[in-house]
């Protein structure tokens, strides 16, 4: 099992950092640096749409955005999960700016088994939600994932996908209904 940082301790660390405690500020900054490694792994999985200079700029941006958002750190969150969501959102926007958005979501590899067999195999055996979302159309799966893994609001994910919020909701609901029907017919989610 994954080692979970304690949300309460994280909350205290954030409060101390915000009130200007230098050790806390340092510690907090240290805790969010892993976003570089996170992006590297994602970028590799997507076939490296971003080069290392772009990754460097993006990581810097994410660190600064996270830093400036500290005061709105949500209760119950862990610092890593919080930074992860910011990183995922900023990555999505960076890819959109680069016109490579369509390769963002893992699930799309599942939809193209011929082109990327190893990724497909990895996903089918690996991450839970990817296996689950194979029942959906590409766009539906993408939106369900952005909503429930990346934790984006409809407004955020619609903006990043360059569609309207109402269209995002329609795709989302269609996907949700497909899953509901499949699983209410007796199939278990896991």
């Amino acid at each position: 099992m994954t080692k979970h940082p304690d949300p309460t301790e994280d909350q205290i660390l954030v409060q101390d950092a915000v009130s200007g405690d230098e050790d806390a500020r340092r510690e907090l900054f240290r805790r969010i640096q892993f976003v570089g490694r996170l992006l590297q792994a994602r970028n590799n999985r997507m076939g490296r749409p971003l080069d290392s200079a772009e990754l460097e700029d993006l990581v810097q941006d994410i660190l600064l955005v996270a830093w400036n958002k500290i005061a709105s750190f949500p209760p119950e969150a862990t610092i890593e999960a919080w930074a992860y969501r910011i990183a995922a959102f900023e990555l999505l926007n960076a890819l959109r700016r680069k016109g490579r958005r369509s390769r963002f979501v893992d699930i799309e590899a599942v939809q193209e088994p011929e082109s990327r067999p190893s990724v497909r195999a990895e996903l089918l055996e690996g991450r839970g939600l990817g296996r689950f979302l194979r029942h959906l159309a590409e766009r539906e799966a993408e939106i369900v994932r952005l909503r429930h893994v990346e934790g984006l609001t409809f407004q955020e994910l619609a903006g990043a996908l360059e569609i309207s919020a109402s269209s995002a909701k329609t795709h989302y609901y269609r996907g949700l209904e497909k899953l509901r029907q499949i699983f209410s017919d007796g199939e278990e989610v896991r």
Partner: protein
Amino acid sequence: MSATHDHSHEVLLQRWATGERLETDEEARLRDCETCRERMSEVEKLVGELEQLGREDLDEELQEALEADVPDFERRAVQRAERKIFGERTATRSPSGVRGWQLLAAALVLVASFVAYRSWSRDDGVAPVEDSLFYLGEGFTELAPAGFTEHIDTFRWEHALAPGGYYELRFYLPGAQDPFYTVPETTETRWTPDPELVLPDHFRWEVRAYDGLDEPDGSADAEVSHSRD
């Protein structure tokens, strides 16, 4: 007794499942329909499962990232961000493999330089804007004041407002989750506080944009430090 499930219920169910707030009578219509009640409980269960799977995926991905070797671009990005955040003149340490005394020494130097930087900024009389002190969200192209400033007069921002949209301003004390002051619905891209409103020396302000459907449409925020002499 149960209401007949019809198309209008489907519309309501979709709005409910996508997080829209329903009117009291709309909620009542769903509750009075057995089909809808069943559907809602299935959707809730499904969403619970999706979120659980999502959390597991996230945990796994986080753990992999935390265990991976630190790539060079991360080191460089960290150094650049560190300079902006902590105001250092020299970039420093790698995240691992540094001895405790080195860390302590580095921390002392950094604290000293940060303090020096802050007092320099204030004493100098000019108003240097430290660019790490504000966040320009999607759609925002300008935000002022931000950073150290001598005098606060008007709050300004640049943003293309959606038709029927509006802005809301929120002011926070350092570290506070709840604003100490808010300015509800304005369609202008500037706001001048009432002279009676005393702003604290340090605060953060945020402008939130909403579209014509009251949906959030981006936000930007900035930290401000000023002297009131």
